[in-house]
């Protein structure tokens, strides 16, 4: 253990900390200042487009969790599957996005919003129409580049820092 | 002089009362049902990272502190002599400085001995 002169290293450290007081904090004050999250954000919900869905259940197969539960009935007139129930338990889903990647008909999106805290466990189970896209439930651009283009640009901490340095 | 210590004594009483009130207040509030209180045996058991304690709780402790305390005691008594000396130094003159030097020197022998015998080492 060699020290040059006792206290020099500590003084250096003290200098650094005191200088940080004069820097702008990197905090974004959440409820008021919101960050633009990533365009590909995997928010905490699934969005399902009833019109586009063919009931092929590729998503359910791709899901490693088995979160998606699809009940279909065959509609004889159209010679198509008709989706009767499409149930997702978002309290169980891990937002991995594999189902979205798998869906061949672009009928499934991950949500863009993340403020989904609930008081009750039961509220996480969502079925059919609760899964629709709406202004409260925007879709994210994960695996959907066309949606990603429309979403606002992500705020980056790096840019904040570099701007300040200039 | 007693008057000023009287002030301190009275203040001491207030200080003790103040801190006692701070301690007793929650008990009163508990009976007013402002503070919840649901003791049970798990709650009242010892916290040790969420596990039960292993072995005795009140373990016998390390002897090593004793050496520090020993040297501390001797030096603390030395300090008692130094206070009046420091106050009166200008009037007492150089002679007292020699006396104190000798005195400190004597005790420093003990200090050095303790150091050499590694009593001041923590192992």
């Amino acid at each position, binding site marked *: 253990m060699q020290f040059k002169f006792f206290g020099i290293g500590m003084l250096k450290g003290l200098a650094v900390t005191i200088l940080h007081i004069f820097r702008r904090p990197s905090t974004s004050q959440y409820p008021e200042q919101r960050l633009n999250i990533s365009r590909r954000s995997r928010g905490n919900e699934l969005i399902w487009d009833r019109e586009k869905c063919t009931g092929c259940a590729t998503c359910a197969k791709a899901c490693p969790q088995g979160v998606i539960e699809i009940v279909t009935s065959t509609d004889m007139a159209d010679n198509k599957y008709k989706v009767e129930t499409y149930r997702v338990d978002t309290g169980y889903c891990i937002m991995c996005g594999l189902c979205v990647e798998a869906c061949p008909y672009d009928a499934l999106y991950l949500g863009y919003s993340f403020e989904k805290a609930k008081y009750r466990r039961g509220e996480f189970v969502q079925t059919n129409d609760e899964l629709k896209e709406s202004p409260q439930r925007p879709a994210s651009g994960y695996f959907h580049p066309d949606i990603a283009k429309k979403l606002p640009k992500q705020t980056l901490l790096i840019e904040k820092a570099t701007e300040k340095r200039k | 002089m007693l008057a000023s210590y009287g002030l301190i004594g009275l203040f001491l009483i207030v200080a003790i009362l103040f801190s006692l009130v701070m301690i007793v207040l929650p008990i009163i509030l508990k009976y007013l049902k402002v503070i919840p209180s649901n003791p049970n045996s798990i709650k009242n058991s010892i916290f040790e990272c969420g596990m039960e304690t292993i072995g005795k709780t009140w373990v016998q402790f390390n*002897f090593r502190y*004793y050496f520090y305390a*020993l040297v501390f*005691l*001797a030096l*603390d*008594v030395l300090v*008692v*002599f130094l206070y009046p000396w420091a106050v009166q130094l200008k009037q007492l003159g150089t002679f007292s400085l020699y006396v104190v030097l000798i005195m400190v020197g004597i005790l420093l022998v003990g200090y050095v001995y303790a150091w050499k015998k590694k009593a001041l080492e923590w192992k």
Partner: protein
Amino acid sequence: MIGLTHYLVLSAVLFCIGLYGALTRRNAVIILMCIELMLNAVNITLVAFSSYIVPQLLTGQVFAIFVMVVAAAEVAVGLAIILAIFRHYKDIDIDNINLLKW
């Protein structure tokens, strides 16, 4: 009015409590504490005499300081002995330590 006698009686009481403890207790640490009580009793006497009989001289207070020095030395060595005994016998009950009873 509080006079010298009050202090002396207080000191006597304290001394006797200490004495009783030192004679009857079997726990070595408690005995040491009792000895401290006795020394304190003596100190009270010294200071009381000093402040009632020679108020301008402080001789008693000087003595009291020396008593404290002695007390400190006594505690240091006494506890060291207790610890040494404890280390050997795992016990500090004076009655059980035959070594000192010869």
